[in-house]
């Protein structure tokens, strides 16, 4: 798979065209067009209910869309289970509530998909897992269970777990929203480091400091639409739309 990707080094990592999605009659995503280049870091923000989580959950088909086309790493998304799973193996995801597997140790959380999905031998999986846990500075907790860790530690394990699959692109769905304030930094530090290593990232977050530091592009969504997108300096200093100004005023105003 990776050889095929190498052949299209300049091809976009994620390409979304004309994406529409409804929950029942409720139109959550409206005519979304978004192209994410390889190595690009994108921060998506917007008021709650604006469809930003739904948008990134469509990229790995945790949500099914009704109209439009999604291509991830050269593979068009279809309804075929095999294709969906193929795309998911290339896409790592980090959730707001971590979603670690509480019945497995930290190490097993990181190994389970390597051994069962990638069919790696256990020893190799453990080696990869320990390297990555080392990278997020939590290798000393490898034998513990998620319930014994703090929120910040759990979220770093969740990032490590996603990285263990060696994904081409990482999706972050409000990764710091469920954390106590003093733990946000340790998670953001890991994400900044990941960005510096050249990982393609799409982050739904309200951490505007993070957006300013690492984002190549900030996207503002409201009512299921992309209202504005710009590099961080332009976005924060010269927002064009009134809704963006209002939103920024609300979250930066105090």
């Amino acid at each position, binding site marked *: 798979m990776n050889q095929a990707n190498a052949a299209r080094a300049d091809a976009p990592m994620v390409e979304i065209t004309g994406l529409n999605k409804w929950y029942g009659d409720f139109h959550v995503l409206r005519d979304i067009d978004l192209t994410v280049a390889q190595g690009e870091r994108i921060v998506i923000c917007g008021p709650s209910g604006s469809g930003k989580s739904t948008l990134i959950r469509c990229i*790995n088909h*945790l949500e099914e869309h009704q109209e439009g086309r999604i291509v991830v790493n050269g593979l068009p998304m279809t309804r075929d*289970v095999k294709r969906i*799973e*193929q795309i*998911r*193996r290339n*896409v*790592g*995801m980090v*959730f707001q*509530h971590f*979603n*670690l*597997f*509480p*019945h497995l140790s930290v190490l097993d959380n990181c190994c*389970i*998909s390597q051994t*069962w*999905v990638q069919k790696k031998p256990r020893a190799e999986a453990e080696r990869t897992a320990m390297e990555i846990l080392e990278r997020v500075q939590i290798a000393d907790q490898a034998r513990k*269970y*998620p*319930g*014994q860790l703090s929120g910040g530690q759990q979220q770093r394990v*969740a990032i490590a*777990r*996603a990285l263990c*699959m060696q994904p081409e692109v990482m999706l972050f769905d409000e990764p710091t929203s469920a954390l106590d304030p003093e733990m946000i930094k340790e998670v953001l530090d890991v994400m900044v480091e990941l960005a510096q290593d050249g990982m393609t990232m799409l982050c739904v977050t309200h951490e505007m400091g993070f957006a300013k530091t690492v984002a190549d592009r900030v996207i503002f969504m409201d009512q299921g639409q992309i209202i504005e997108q710009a590099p961080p300096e332009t976005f924060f200093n010269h927002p064009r739309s009134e809704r963006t100004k209002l939103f920024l005023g609300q979250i930066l105003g105090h």
Partner: protein
Amino acid sequence: MADTITTTEPEMVAERRPPDLRRGLLGWLHANLFNTPLNGVVTLITVTLLSMLLWPALQWAVFQADWLGDSREACSGEGACWVFISARFESIVYGFYPEAERWRVDLVFVLLAVLIAWLVIPRLPAKRWVGVFALVGFPVLAFFLLVGGSFGLTHVPTREWGGVMLTLTIATVGIVGSLPIGVVLALGRRSKMPLVRGFCVVFIEFWRGVPLITVLFMASVMLPLFVPTQVEFDKLLRALVGIMFFWSAYMAEVVRGGLQAIPSGQEEAAKAMGMGYWQRMGLIVLPQSLKLVIPGIVNTFIALFKDTSLVLIIGLFDLLAIIRAGLTDSNWLGFATEGYVFAALVFWVFCFGMSRYSQYIERRLHTGHRN
């Protein structure tokens, strides 16, 4: 009164051991049984009542009971006469299984005990292989040993089976069969495929909606009317299938409760890593939900175990039925109490054992201090 506002940093309070709040036996008695005058009176009344009930029971069952002998002449008539049980012990255990062949039953008993012990004691190695053998190899082996008719063993028809041996056979087959079928039904009931879901719903609601006695009657009386006369289904086999399906419907609902308690984020995380349906269920969702519903599963096992005695109404001689049969023996008229108490005790020992083991397993599988 407001606390004074301090400006200097307080000194670190040294870490201490928690205070010892134990107060010895008298302290415990006072705190738990005699802490108020009313509770003191209640305690005294309870103790009096208990001793009034327990003492005669003990007198009857132990102190004045007759233990030795081989006929009813050994019974003094003051207390219980356990000679009734010991004299009939062989038939209580083996039913009408031919005496010369009872070693086969013994062998199966020993194997079963060893396998259960092996799986239950955490220190013993190779759990996976022993487990596979217990679920696949052992039933086949037990079948050939008990039924016979091949490998030079004489055939023992199931109508000669009985007693504890029959009770354990039905319970084991029921337990081992109903859990996996129940799990599959529970998964099926949550399936997105309408045919699968529909089948599971109808199956579960049908078997849950009829009394077990009806199931057994249908299995023994009605089923033979529908199948061609050349095909002869064993009566025990029919009862076993009925019991297995009946309890798997209950099991399915217990397991479904556990499935619903697992947050959707768990399956999403597994999906996001590219796991397929069976991997998500087998590795992530089921281990968590089954752990959650251990009490419900064991509850069902216990109910199943006790309800095996219902097979007596279709003429199978389980533990209870064989004791009842013994009561009609003209040499042993009038020992119903001993018989029923003994039967109750045997059932209780097995059920209590399952209950304790499930509590132990719950503690052992508990991971993490929080959640």
